[in-house]
């Protein structure tokens, strides 16, 4: 659904899709065998046939879609809001009540989707009819609109009045019960399509009009060419068997299950539930002793280790012991080039060359000769991605070699052993004792402080 105004065609696909679905539900409700049981309802002194109570609607929805009462109330409420079912007793209150209040199905003639859009002319005729039938029957907002319309489409006003009179005459010839039903249906239609401003549905109407989209699929040459090129490339693509991929998802979800606070809670407690920020304090970026879950997570993948600042630091310490710290430094420098400002690319590439790639460099990294040659050539015309191949080579070197060894090392094992497993803290027994909520420094503040300190030093 987009905000663009209609180009051509006037088809508001997103709303129509909803309407079709709601209509399916409504049709099922009126099914002679499996649908709802209807009865006659008294309205003042007249008996309205084929009506049902709000309670009936909810029970039917609960049974048919196997849902709880809250959801049935919600869905039923939507059917009323969009005019498929209308209330008989309080027509202006477009709410589904779970009691004996009578409701009726709107006739398809008056479905919003059938008579779209609701025209000014029709509305004028409707208001005129109401006005003629019983002087002063119009509500305040209807009176306002009536006079606005009278001004705006004054040139066709004779037609409006004539139509209104004609329709009133025709309706007098109907049986009273039918006449009342038709009046109710028409009233319900206009309550939906021209609601008083206070109803939230009016906003729906405004955006309903605005949300059109250009349905025409672009058939120009350019798009077709792109499509063909894409298909050709895609046909040659390597795919993996479903069974392998899908197993991957199952394994991933299992592995991370205990780390998922929404599914398994978190220790000591979820701050949003218990009002206690201990969990955040224990898991800040740099902390003397990290939590066990956090250290375990480093072992899930090399990316997890690198994404955690503490993990990265630990890994650097390990590499220093192994005399291969230049690999991680190189990788970090390449990341900085890739994601940094455009204006500093040239200078950064120079730095990297000097420190890591030049023969005899202080922290020379071991890249295969083919990649080295390609990179050195690329450096002559430095751009953002010039280090990509070299960076990838070093990344996979660390991933395949240093990372597994780190996980087996004493350094990691000690970290894991030392790591805290916080005690679970249940929500406070005295819920009315609200804890003080302290504000934390905003990240902008932290940066400002750091640069201030730097300035002073």
């Amino acid at each position: 659904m987009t905000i663009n105004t209609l180009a051509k065609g006037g088809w508001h696909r997103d709303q129509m899709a909803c309407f079709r679905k709601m209509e399916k539900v409504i049709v099922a409700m009126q099914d002679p065998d499996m649908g709802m049981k209807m009865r006659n309802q008294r309205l003042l002194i007249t008996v309205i046939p084929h009506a049902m109570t709000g309670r009936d609607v909810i029970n039917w929805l609960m049974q048919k879609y196997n849902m709880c009462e809250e959801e049935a109330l919600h869905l039923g409420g939507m059917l009323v809001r969009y005019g498929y079912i209308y209330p008989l007793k309080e027509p202006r209150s477009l709410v589904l009540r779970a009691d004996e209040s009578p409701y009726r199905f709107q006739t398809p003639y008056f479905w919003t989707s059938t008579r779209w859009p609701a025209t000014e002319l029709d509305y004028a005729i409707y208001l005129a009819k109401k006005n003629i039938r019983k002087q002063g029957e119009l509500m305040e907002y209807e009176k306002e609109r009536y006079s606005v319309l009278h001004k705006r489409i004054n040139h066709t006003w004779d037609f409006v009045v004539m139509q209104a009179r004609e329709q009133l005459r025709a309706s007098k010839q109907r049986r009273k019960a039918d006449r009342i039903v038709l009046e109710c249906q028409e009233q319900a239609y206009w309550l939906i399509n021209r609601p008083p401003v206070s109803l939230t549905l009016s906003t729906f109407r405004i955006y309903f009009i605005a949300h059109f989209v250009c349905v025409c699929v672009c058939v120009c040459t350019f798009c077709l060419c792109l499509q063909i090129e894409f298909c050709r490339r895609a046909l040659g693509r390597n795919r993996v068997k479903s069974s392998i991929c899908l197993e991957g998802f199952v394994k991933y979800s299992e592995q991370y299950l205990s780390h998922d606070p929404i599914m398994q809670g978190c220790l000591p407690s979820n701050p949003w539930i218990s009002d206690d920020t201990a969990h955040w304090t224990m898991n800040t970026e740099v902390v003397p002793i990290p939590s066990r879950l956090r250290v375990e997570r480093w072992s899930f993948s090399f990316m997890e280790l690198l994404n955690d600042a503490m993990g990265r630091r630990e890994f650097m310490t390990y590499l220093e012991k192994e005399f291969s710290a230049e690999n991680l430094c190189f990788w970090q420098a390449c990341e900085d080039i890739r994601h940094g400002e455009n204006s500093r690319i040239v200078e950064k590439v120079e730095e990297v060359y000097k420190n890591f790639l030049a023969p005899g460099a202080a922290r020379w990294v071991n890249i295969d000769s083919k990649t080295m040659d390609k990179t050195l050539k690329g450096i002559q015309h430095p751009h953002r991605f010039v280090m990509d191949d070299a960076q990838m080579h070093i990344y996979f070197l660390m991933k395949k070699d240093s990372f597994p060894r780190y996980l087996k090392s004493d350094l990691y094992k000690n970290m894991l052993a030392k790591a805290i497993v916080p005690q679970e803290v249940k929500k406070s027994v005295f819920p009315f004792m609200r804890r003080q909520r302290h504000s934390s420094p905003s990240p902008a503040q932290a940066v400002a402080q750091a640069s201030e300190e730097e300035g002073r030093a």
Partner: protein
Amino acid sequence: MACQGLQKGETLASLKTESDGLKKKLEVERGKLNDVELHQVAEKTEVLGALSIKTRRVLKGHGAKVLCMDWCKDKRRLVSSSQVRTSTDLWTREHGVSLPCTWVMACAYAPSGCAVACGGLDNKCSVIPLSLDKDENLAAKKKSVAMHTNYVSGCTFTNSDMQMLTSSGDGTCALWDVESGQLLQSFHGHTADVLSLDLAPSETGNTFVSGGCDRKANVWDMRSGQNIQSFESHESDINCVKYYPSGDAFASASDDATCRFYDLRADREVAVYQKDSIVFGASTVDFSLSGRLLFAGYNDYTINAWDVLKGNRVSILFGHENRVSRVKLSPDGTAICSASWDNTLRIWA
């Protein structure tokens, strides 16, 4: 780009036939390695019990529909928009400053937490540095970075504050250098408005996915600008796309009232999350930290939580009084924030 207008012997019709033929061939290829369905593989996993997720915070204070929101990396602040409200500290409910602009459809927090980006009907995406001085005139510090020829529907920073990705109603996505405002790469392939994008959490960090009104979800290579993969199985506009935490799949939410799950390695759709009783379009999705739950916000004011593997709905969250426009997991996975047209934001945990 290989073609420059029609070649000799080609007509628009012949191109169309060729395109359709290739598409069919592609479907056949994709089907070849399809040896099992997701719900079959998921049979051995435990059934999820009922979740006890409730509203824990309600944030009022927006005077208009909240169209978008994004979390700050500090896990407790967020930026929200219709009018831009910067760095609202959810924990203490302290409001940051707000910018008087309307119809901001996309907003994002910079990874450093020192700036926010916002864009919308002004066809631009601007970056606003966050300062400590609450009275400072933020509007003056606003810097235009992205320029599109139609509204901006989505924006996100890439791994640093220096680059930004945007999606637009003009049918393209674009990568920008924040400092200079230079266009680094543009991505063509959608044939209608692009409504959403998401960056891949992969090791090489080079791809992103976009979804649009042409019902397609496209995966792009950020470096070359090429469309690597494309999925067209929704029956209506795709409102939102989001990567699975491992980066091997993504989910989409659409006006056809379904959410779908696409496997990138197998190159096909592997699950559809739908129910007969769900009638209204889904406008937003996000995964829980483990990727087992998919939270989707709908136009009928509810949020449904789906079991990604088994395909059934686990929970339905009521509370909002108008459309849910955005749902986002907090950076540490402790809570979900939802933004709605009822002018409020809610935190669920």
